[in-house]
């Protein structure tokens, strides 16, 4: 018998006896309503785009994300130029995509494009990794990326500054809607990596004091057009 069969047969044997119903030991009345409608129990999110933008801004800012609302593509281009100057970028890394191509059209810096493969050391020494995303989640101030939408697995996490180029219509209210989007968009063929990014990299491992940039990016900028 393979280990697989041995384990499965032990499981089946064990499950012949049924276990108490969940929460049976609770004092309170069992909750009413459709428990699987998670949106009802998770933190509330307003219905309008304006409320959701405001919520995304508040949540992401609380976590030290730099969130900027952008009016036009020319505004986007100038914003990126301004960040590049301020941060003194020498070299950046990015992937190909309609939105990002437009956004970086005027950025005249040495750059790596990851889509067809890249040299890891070159990526490591880039000052910024610029990506698109699949969604912005208002409920938690989260950016949803995949290895397909954001130039692979490392681009959004290795360089010290991650810049996200997003569109307003990518804004989603909450986590349940984000997972619904993933299913709808990729059901037949999921990317091998899906990541929910909530703020820059952080650690509290030293005396519970918050420090940014533990291993992943120290800075996360979201430019929302």
């Amino acid at each position: 018998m393979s280990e697989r069969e041995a384990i499965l047969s032990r499981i089946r044997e064990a499950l012949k006896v049924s276990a108490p119903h969940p929460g049976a030991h609770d004092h309170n009345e069992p909750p009413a309503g459709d428990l699987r409608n998670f949106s009802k129990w998770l933190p509330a999110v307003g219905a309008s785009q304006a409320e959701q933008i405001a919520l995304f801004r508040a949540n992401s800012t609380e976590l030290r994300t730099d969130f900027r609302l952008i009016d036009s593509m020319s505004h986007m281009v100038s914003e990126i130029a301004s960040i590049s100057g301020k941060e003194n970028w020498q070299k950046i890394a990015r992937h190909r995509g309609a939105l990002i191509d437009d956004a970086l059209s005027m950025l005249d810096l040495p750059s790596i494009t990851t889509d067809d493969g890249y040299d890891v050391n070159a990526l490591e020494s880039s000052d910024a990794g610029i990506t698109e995303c699949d969604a912005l989640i208002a409920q938690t101030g989260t950016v949803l990326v995949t290895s397909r939408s954001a130039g692979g697995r490392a681009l959004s996490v290795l360089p010290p500054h991650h810049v996200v180029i997003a569109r307003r219509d990518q804004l989603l209210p909450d986590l349940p809607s984000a997972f619904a989007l993933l299913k709808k968009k990729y059901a037949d063929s999921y990317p091998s990596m899906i990541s929910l990014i909530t703020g820059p990299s952080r650690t509290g491992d030293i005396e519970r004091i918050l420090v940014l940039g533990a291993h992943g990016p120290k800075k996360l900028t979201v430019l929302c057009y």
Partner: protein
Amino acid sequence: MIPFFKEFKQQATRLTHDLRHRGLIQTALKKYEISRDAKKSRFQSWETARQAAAETKWEAINHLDKYLVEFAQKLEARGTHVHWASTAEQARDIIVKIVRDKKARSIIKSKAMTAEEIHLNDALEHAGFEVVESDLGEYIVQLRHEAPYHIVFPAMHLTRGEISALFQRELGSAPTDNPEELTMIARRALRGKYIAADIGITGVNFAIAETGMISITENEGNARLTAALPKTMISLLGIEKVLPRLEDLALFLPMLATAGAGQALTGYNTMYGGPRQPGECDGPEEFHVVLLDNKRTHLLADAEQRDALHCIRCGACLNVCPIYKNVGGHTYGTTYQGPIGSVITPHLRGLQDWKHLSSASSLCGACTETCPVKINLHHHLLQNRRNAMAEKPVWWEKLAFKGFAFVVNRPRLYDLGKKLARIGQAFHPLIKGTAFDPARSWTQTRELPELAPQSFHELWKERK
């Protein structure tokens, strides 16, 4: 006395007298309580969310065979190698073999309590491979040759001064008491390791059956790097990590973050469904997932305590446990600490050897109250005590309780007992606190209550 019990008592005695240590832990956990309460209150109904989570895990565990098969099939369909290990030894052998076959020169690892459980690092080092822990807290305790102090915060017990001294000694860095500088020292030291590593080993927080994905939760980004750069990726998980559907994560990820760390959501929650897929520009060429039993099926078979397998390893029960807060994580002497550790360790490592953890509890119930998946933790401690005594009673204890029952069921004997106690009280000061004092375990640190001049029974009779 059983060796583990003796160790536990010695450590507990030492650490409960260490006021500095107690203060450090309690300060850290007080901060956690404040953030946790703030995040909990943002939920529209935390209590309903708990019930939803409890029912989802119940569904997963009580159909574990079905969901494990689905999980494995979906993973294999996209090129992942799935391995099944009944024991810790088998899991170690599987992973060492992969590492050998790849002729790995350097291994980077992200946090995995399951790897602690099977002593994976020891096995790999024994086989001649260098393993570097990438999570900052784990990196620190690895350099100190220590076990993690807490399942979520491995270095909770250390001050910045101790960490600075450690880095000076092991890395040759300049002394500093600035946490940011200390973090940057570690970041720099590890950066090169990510790039050079041939193999990345990770743990798993959740295993999604529906889509064949593992989900990893972290704040630092070290697991993302471990899963992005090395050519071979190995992920180890206990079979109980299964969730039925992808959308279940919408509930579990925020609950894990809130209960475990007082965060709305952890920094990076990442799902991996296979090695690099066609059209992708990076990621491991080979992906191995190792499913570990190691007595989990034994716990599964105990239907009364089966819900202990619902555990999502958030650490909330540790954070609220007054015993944990006073003795700290190392005292438990085993991988899984606090209330959940006390419940499951007898199942994973032997009831008679580990029953003392179930006794070392005042049964206050704070753990059960806080558990996001409603595990009946403190009642399981009582059940462990019962099971242990049913299997191997302590003869004099059993006799004493029989004697007590005999006396207490006979009012005249009980009255006699009270009279004798009065005499005993008169003589007690002579032996109080000495080796002859039968009440020594109380009187070492506390005064005994005085017997009232008249008992309630006597006063009641007078009233009539």
